[in-house]
């Protein structure tokens, strides 16, 4: 094993070009577990800790440019207005110590379907800026996840920045685990209302081979809100709409049975979370005061 310590982003790209098998390590919260438990022996570790730009973020007019290594703690504490869904998701990540080290870049790099940030990124709408010595490109989040623990990165590319649309409406995020803290998702769901475009977006985690959107549920809800004039009137969402949205989200899931939960439970739970989040976000949109800000929830 070799340990590569680039001092700058350019050096990192050069190292990744020279050693395409090098495994990037930033927070270390995934790769170090694999090393400690002898599950993986990369030929090269490529340390990204010395690259300051990966830990910076910038709030633009429409988009937050989030460095790949910005720790979840920083997202929770500093970006809850701009990225409420991602801030909520960040708050569910593992433990305070892990949140102090891990960042969204690691989630994207590992592309585990259980990564906590994926549903929030899918729901908010994001683009992943990746770069190599050949140049940089923006990968839409919908095209980023290509298979179980596989992503759209080329072997010489590194994740640099995640461009996430600033929230133009309420966002929510929940995950289910069989413990009240420090738990890997059995399944997760994220929902973002986008009043500017009068659309909604969703994200499902840990309930399909990759993180996915519940597109049929989104389409149904977009249509139902439009037809019912909900966006203008801000009237209460009907239970039947909420239920059907939940059922369609549940139907979008394509989960497996594993040691953390059954496929049947995952489908069920996705539906419940979707239904609840629709009520939470919509109540917040209506501004009735029921869209309460949650102490401890970001």
């Amino acid at each position, binding site marked *: 094993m070799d340990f590569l310590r680039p001092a700058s982003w350019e050096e990192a790209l050069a190292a990744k070009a020279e050693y395409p098998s090098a495994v990037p390590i930033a927070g270390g919260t995934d790769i170090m577990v694999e090393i*400690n*438990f*002898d599950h993986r022996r990369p030929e090269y570790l490529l340390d990204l800790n010395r690259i300051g730009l990966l830990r910076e973020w910038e709030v633009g007019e429409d988009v937050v440019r989030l460095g790949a290594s910005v720790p979840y703690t920083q997202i929770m504490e500093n970006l809850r207005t701009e990225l409420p869904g991602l801030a*909520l998701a960040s*708050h*569910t990540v593992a433990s305070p110590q892990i949140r102090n080290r891990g960042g969204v870049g690691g989630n994207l790099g590992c592309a585990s379907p259980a990564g906590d940030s994926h549903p929030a990124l899918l729901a908010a709408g994001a683009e992943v800026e990746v770069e190599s010595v050949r140049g940089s490109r923006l990968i839409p989040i919908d095209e980023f996840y290509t298979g179980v623990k596989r992503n759209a990165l080329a072997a010489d590319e590194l994740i640099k920045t995640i461009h996430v649309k600033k929230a133009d409406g309420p966002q*929510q*995020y*929940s*995950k*289910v*685990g*069989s*413990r*009240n*803290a*420090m*738990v*890997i998702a*059995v399944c997760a769901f994220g929902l973002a209302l986008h009043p500017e475009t009068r659309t909604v977006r969703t994200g499902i985690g840990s309930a399909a081979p990759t993180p996915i959107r519940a597109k049929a549920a989104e389409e149904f809800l977009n249509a139902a809100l439009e037809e019912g004039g909900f966006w203008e009137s801000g009237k209460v969402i009907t239970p039947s709409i909420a239920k059907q949205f939940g059922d369609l989200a549940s139907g979008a899931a394509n989960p497996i049975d594993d*040691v*953390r*939960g*059954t496929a*049947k*439970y995952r*489908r*069920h*739970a996705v539906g*419940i*979370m979707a239904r*609840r989040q629709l*009520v*939470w976000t919509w109540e917040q949109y209506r501004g009735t*005061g029921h869209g*309460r*800000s*949650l*102490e*401890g*929830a970001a």
Partner: protein
Amino acid sequence: MAQNTRTVPAGTPTNVTQKHNKGGIGESTLRPDGTLKVTGEFAYSSDMWHEDMLWGQTLRSTVAHAEIASIDISEALAMPGVYSVLTYDDLPAAMKNYGLEIQDTPVLANGRVRHHGEPVALVAADHPETARRAAAKIKIDYRELPLVTDEASALAPDAPLIHPGRDDHHSGHVPHPNIVHRQPIIRGNVEEARKRADVIVEGEYTFGMQDQAFLGPESGLAVPSEDGGVDLYVATQWLHSDLKQIAPVLGLPEEKVRMTLSGVGGAFGGREDISMQIHACLLALATNKPVKIVYNRFESFFGHVHRHPAKLYYEHGATKDGKLTHMKCKIVLDGGAYASASPAVVGNASSLSVGPYVLEDVDIEAIALYTNNPPCGAMRGFGAVQACFAYEAQMDKLAAKLGMDPVEFRQLNAMEMGTIMPTGQVVDSPAPVAELLRRVKSRPLPPERQWESAGEGADVRALPGGLSNTTHGEGVVRGVGYAVGIKNVGFSEGFDDYSTARVRLEVINGEPVAMVHTAMAEVGQGGVTVHAQIARTELGVTQVTIHPADTQVGSAGSTSASRQTYMTGGAVKNTCEAVREAVLEIGRRKNGSYHPAWATAELLLEGGKIVTDGGEVLADIADVLEGEDAIDLELEFRHRPTVAFDLKTGQGDGHVQYTFAAHRAVVEVDTELGLVKVVELATAQDVGKALNMLSVVGQIQGGTTQGLGVAIMEEIIVDPKTAKVRNPSFTDYLIPTILDTPTIPVDVLELADPNAPYGLRGMGEAPTLSSTPAVLAAIRAATGLELNKTPIRPEALTGTL
């Protein structure tokens, strides 16, 4: 102490001295090792370090049941940095097995593996990574064998025998060689009594496999000595039991295996058996270098036995006015591939299967199976936990069927002093079962909708799902449940249970100082605190030195069975009394003629002085001991004898002491997502006499939380198709975090047991029994579901299994 020229390893425990003006029994004295533990200086077994030490690595079987056709270690041996590779063929002595009661466990697999993760080969190398890479290069050719995974496959006519040709002391009476031990208990006449029953309830219950999940992994350091022996620094629950198993396999006399207790990072039964002890010694002797072995968390799940999973079948009857008529039960414990403590667990499960209730007509059977599942043995509660989970569910079912309050129903049938156990043993000290229930029930309930804290909105941290933000109150229903349990204290069934204490009293700098030396394993329970308290009370000193636990002093027995304060505490008291007599003897010899009280009065040692029971000071201890040798005595202490249970009827005074705790659980369940938040777990327990209330409450809260864990999240999942463990990590074997643990108010009763030292009652295990069924009862109350399996998974609450 080490008989060699090597330097003493870093982390070798030293004397710990605590000076305290008060600090006798009954005080909440602080731990003498507390400062070391908060500064990071306290050395645990994994902290041991020696110059030029090697690292040991265990290669474990990747399959559960197989013949080993061949092992090729040549590539591993050829690796630079590798000092030794050992397999079964390298074992030095005729004895190649070990075991607590039955020596059926191979030190290294002998041509056959019987469970997933069984040790097959050992490597010693200069770095843990070298050792791991070498172990990975060992080639093993497994020929898989059919699996035995449950009662049906164990007892089938063509079942493969896990231990063919067994000749242990239970082999003669068991109905099948795949049954480790069977203990029936028959008393009264169940068939006749059943006729009196107005209601009968039956139940089939499943208890999952729980792991002790102590935080300090199995680890230790073996240092070879010039005399051909070995010094072993290790974390264990019972040094002398280890020694008896280690020495024969090394082919060494016991005096050449010198064991010292290193810091122990929790135990809970999981260190009752041998783990890395023999392996480290073998490698140290083979390489003539110190060898350290530290399991990681993954290996730890294979490195110790677990709590027996169990199937329990119960039938209870009651009259319409709420009196129990009879009970029938069968308890099937899965002991896994090796016996470990299974026979004793069977004895406990059987003899405590009725719970703390009056039942004169019973028909009980408990068995433990040999299977290819992971070996199971001791864990806090030891057979009584599984039974309590089942009989308490039965009590709730009966109460519901009778339309009675579940607490009143229990109180109506509660045992008390004088009750006869199903074994025929009379409960001869306080058994305040009804009172414990009354106390937990009379506590005010925590406020409804407690997640709506002062401000607006919901605090998700107080809701099911916690930080995962799954509910803001939707679907949340409260439930309240009760349970009570009975546990035995100390080793039972005729075992010669004793402990040894050495106490030395001498004058240092003009002050009398006591030193207490025992082999008691301090695993966190606070035994060392209590020993110092006892010495202060009995010898009137302020300064007490705790000597490290080692095998240079007699056995203390195990730190298990809620027995150490009773047994080694009793031994320290007993030796202190002899030391006091010796002081008084010297005093009488020197000063007796100056005051008649020397001859006539009851004399005590208090505040550094010899005083009469009337408080008159006769002399300073320091003056009396002036010019004398230190008084240094080592004595054994025994509890009153027990007898074995009859193998057909189960009759016999098999237990020393009984101990009781009750719980009330308040839970909030997200009934749509099946997530649970335990809001409060109120406890009441009789401890006879609290030698240290701070420690007592800590034990109760800790034991309660382990019971909570197995109620709602903890289970080692074994794939029934492969008998392989599917979740050997803290990512997938979940134990409660601080956000899963409720407030645990504790109500302590002190009703003395006249047979026990200071009247104390062993107390470490009882809270682990009743907290599980209390939580389950509360979840049943919230959901209306039957819930016959622990742990409760979200699937079970949402119909999505």
